[in-house]
């Protein structure tokens, strides 16, 4: 399974801290998240594992960390992994963490994320589709789940979360502007090159057609099976 390019989100900025965070702490957070999910949304696990129990690799492209997710109706598991080869998995889902979290909550459409190449899937597509459908059938609200985890301090946690979301939006806006400033001239150049390449390809195609016509005129008609000219475009 291939490596993905990092996504340019605010999570990329905190990625070094996440990478160096104590593994025990990250594992504790993962355990809590999975226990909450299992308690509140047991139907997801039951619906998905009608066929089999399986494991996935969740690879946020803006975090320097991946997660091993075992879908088991009785003992689900979520744990951090540093290398994709650490655990055998049925499939790998890659994408920016914000997109993955939106998908988890049913706020984004998985197919649309896939069409736009925001989300990438490798391995057993049927299991990924089953999980996506099961998750989409639930009403998952991460903000409430996280703030409720703080018990009596949940009102304060809600305020902090709201502040964090606002801050996240501002940082993302600034990052988008910075990225645009850095790449605008390059994009213009590439756009120009693209136009020229297209024009040259069209010119080549016209020349090819013209050569073919001339060649047909020069040669006597010969019978070819259309099958010979039809092939799947496999560059493998």
């Amino acid at each position, binding site marked *: 399974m*291939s490596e993905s390019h990092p996504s340019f989100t605010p999570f990329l900025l905190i990625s070094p801290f996440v990478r160096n965070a104590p593994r025990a702490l990250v594992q504790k957070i993962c355990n809590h998240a999975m226990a909450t999910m299992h308690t509140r949304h047991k139907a997801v696990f039951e619906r998905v594992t009608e*066929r089999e129990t399986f494991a996935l690799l969740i690879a946020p492209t803006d975090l320097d960390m991946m997660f091993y997710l075992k879908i088991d109706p009785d003992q689900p598991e979520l744990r951090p992994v540093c290398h994709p080869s650490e655990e055998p998995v049925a499939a790998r889902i890659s994408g920016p963490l914000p997109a993955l979290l939106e998908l988890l909550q*049913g706020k984004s459409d998985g*197919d649309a994320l896939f*069409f736009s*190449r925001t989300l990438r899937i490798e391995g057993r*597509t*049927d299991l990924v589709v089953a999980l996506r459908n099961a998750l989409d059938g639930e009403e998952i609200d991460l903000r409430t789940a996280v703030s409720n985890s703080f018990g009596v301090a949940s009102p304060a946690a809600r305020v902090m979360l709201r502040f964090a979301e606002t801050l996240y939006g501002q940082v993302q806006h600034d990052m988008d502007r910075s990225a645009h400033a850095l790449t605008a001239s390059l994009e213009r150049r590439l756009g120009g090159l693209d136009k020229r390449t297209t024009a040259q390809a069209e010119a080549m195609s016209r020349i090819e057609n013209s050569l073919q016509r001339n060649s047909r005129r020069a040669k006597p008609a010969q019978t070819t099976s259309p099958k010979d000219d*039809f092939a799947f475009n496999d560059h493998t």
Partner: protein
Amino acid sequence: MELVCPAGTPASLHAAVDAGADVVYCGFRDATNARNFPGLNFSRDELRDAVRYAHKHDVHVYLACNTYPQAGIEYIWQAAIDDAVAIGVDAVILADIGLLRYARDRHPDARLHLSVQASASNEEAIKFYHREFAVRRVVLPRVLSLEEIRYLNHRIPVETEVFAFGGMCVMAEGRCSLSSYATGESPNMNGVCSPAAHVHYEERDDMTVSRLGDFTINIYDQNEKVGYPTLCKGRFRAMNKSGYLFEEPTSLDVTAILPELAEAGVTALKIEGRQRGKAYISQVVSAFRASLDRISQGQLTTRSSLSTLSEGQSDTTGAYRRSWQ
């Protein structure tokens, strides 16, 4: 025009109702409907609750039972019809003539709609289904032009429902064997076109390779938008040229021609996508609800903003305008 919206899960049905659907259509969690994807669709209990919720909000529910029964296990399809009627759905959408006959005889008061899977695209075929099975509405195939729909509506005694948004199908629906050819399973018999268990994606450098069974469907460059891995939307090489021989990965969007469809006598607009998430359903249904409300108030339709949800991130008015002819 009635807005008929998809739901693959109870949560999607709630989203469709809340977003302004007039009708929601769904299927049971088995091979009796043409969206038999893993983790999708309704149990009997879920459908019962869904119908209760929809009716409370004055929204109708249609049950799609639109695949073709396999010999010896017809009872699965017949049970789906019996249960749907008992639960109280407002119409059953059928394609197979054996099931239509069964439904007409066993449930004479049930409202029957003819699925697009029956591919009834001409006056005589539609009149036959009406005469023999008391079908009251036909879902027209996505290959008819506006002119043809207008012509039919003047000559047939039933309502017409047309696709308004979502996946395209240029084949004779219910008769296409491309998925069977590649995987052994089809939307007609198993309820799945390009079943997910046969679909594989591979990330290779900056390219995404999509495969269906043993066939490479497409190889996308880094900046290309992706479509569904169906053979009809594959990019192939023929006569020394690569391209989409049958159909490009794109979605139907009729927002721009809603007034023309109304003028052509169409009764209902169908949004495709029971396999899509509730976010898709909320956005698409809300957008069409707003457009239909604007039209009913005599205002013009605005430009569609749904292309980010489209396959290949592009849209078309498909065969309705047939600009290629």
